[in-house]
């Protein structure tokens, strides 16, 4: 049995572990150790990290159905916010380092290229999630409304994995695995919903 306390105690370690890659990449970028095409590499790593963290938040919810690790859910907010952190870095790399804030070009790029459209919408949907993440916000909105807002994580995850899927040119194995995991997690939620009223009787 893992208590809330156990999970809370692990938070500082987790915090450092999840933060660390971004610091490492920043350091490697500045010192010229990110390979031959460092901007592309940085963008890819940040984006992949963000997608993985989004999937982990979905997994945490599913795992919290298991009684003995129910309290794992206390980690979800931190990981969700880290996902947002990585998405922000990913997006900033794209608009600042990749395109030097050429807004006209960037807007065209977002409209014309489906994979960028998917990624951008996913990023937009994450904003309300991140900005309503405090306890205070949950109180102010009421749990029901708050929860409704946070259903946005589903389109976020689907769009983010599509963003990756369309980007890959030929070997789609990795994005397909991510999509598969997301679909399984969603199916599990739907299944739970359908079976819940019966349990209530």
């Amino acid at each position, binding site marked *: 049995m893992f208590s809330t306390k156990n999970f809370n105690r692990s938070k500082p370690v987790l915090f450092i572990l999840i933060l660390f890659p971004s610091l490492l990449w920043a350091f490697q970028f500045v010192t010229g150790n990110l*390979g*031959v*095409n460092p901007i592309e590499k940085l963008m890819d790593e940040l984006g992949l990290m963000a997608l993985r963290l989004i999937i982990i938040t979905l997994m945490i919810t599913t795992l919290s159905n298991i009684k003995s690790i129910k309290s794992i859910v206390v980690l979800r907010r931190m990981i969700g916010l880290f996902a947002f952190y990585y998405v922000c870095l990913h997006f900033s790399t794209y608009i600042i380092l990749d395109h030097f804030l050429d807004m006209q*070009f960037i807007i065209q790029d977002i409209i*014309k*290229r489906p994979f960028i459209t998917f990624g951008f919408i996913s990023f937009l949907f994450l904003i309300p999630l991140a900005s309503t993440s405090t306890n205070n916000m949950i109180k102010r909105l009421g749990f029901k409304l708050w929860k409704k807002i946070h259903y946005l994580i589903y389109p976020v995850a689907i769009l983010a994995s599509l963003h990756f899927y369309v*980007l*890959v040119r*030929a*070997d789609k194995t990795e994005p397909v695995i991510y999509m598969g995991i997301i679909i399984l997690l969603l199916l599990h939620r739907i299944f739970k919903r359908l079976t819940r009223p019966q349990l209530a009787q």
Partner: protein
Amino acid sequence: MKILGSEITPYKTYLNRRKFIKGSLASAMLATVTSTAFANHDSGLSIYTKNLNENDKLNSYEEITTYNNFYEFGTHKKHPHLNSGNFKPRPWTIKIDGLVKKPQTFDLEKILSNVTIEDRVYRLRCVEAWSMVIPWQGFQLSELIKMAEPLSSAKYVQFVTVFRPEEMPGQQKRTIIWPYREGLRMDEAMNPLTILATGLYGHEMPNQNGAPIRLVVPWKYGFKSIKSIVEIRFLDTQPETSWETLAPWEYGFYANVNPNVNHPRWSQGTERRIGEFKRRETLMFNGYEEEVAHLYKDLDLTKFY
């Protein structure tokens, strides 16, 4: 063959050394005016080298050999460099068939003894919107075509890459339909810019860059420049090409570098020159407009992209 970074001669030195050797053979006076005296030789100062713009700087040997696409060795751009160690580029033969006087198989050594190897410094523009400047060594494809003696009915040339899944781990997975195939229209193939390259930076072609012999068509996106060629076929109809078969809405047969024709995934208006921080504008036909624009004067390039 493993080459240490320290063994790589910077290209300038490499060219100068060759000039020096030539110069010492000729008179000292002549050596100072080699650029025109040796214009038709492999002095590295051919018109093609002069074609580079002032702001085109050579990419390093390391950049050229550790970052490229060669799906036969894996789909990531570091894979060719990491996974090509077991590939054996010698001995090598090229099969010539289709609409030719006599189908035959040439030994690579025989081909090389019949052609003039020269230096060609070309820009290479990948469809993924990155680019490099590469000092190739090779010979004009037209020389081999003459050796092959195609019939007058031959309108297209198709190229096929070697299929050796045991040496090319990327071929063990069906990412694209193997073997890789590419093609050119006959006039594109005969254009003096089109070469078969056998080396870069004065070294034999590294495995990861398409050893022992590959195509280089500098005004087209990089995927047209097929690597490790084992078969050349002459046809009267436009051949199927690998990327076009996989995603025809993204990759056309022509695949000319064209900043005005959008690709669904990459804006082709700009590119990142490897080694540079800011993107630069992409040039029509990758800057080789003067040499090749006439080939397409009757073609709608937005349709035939």
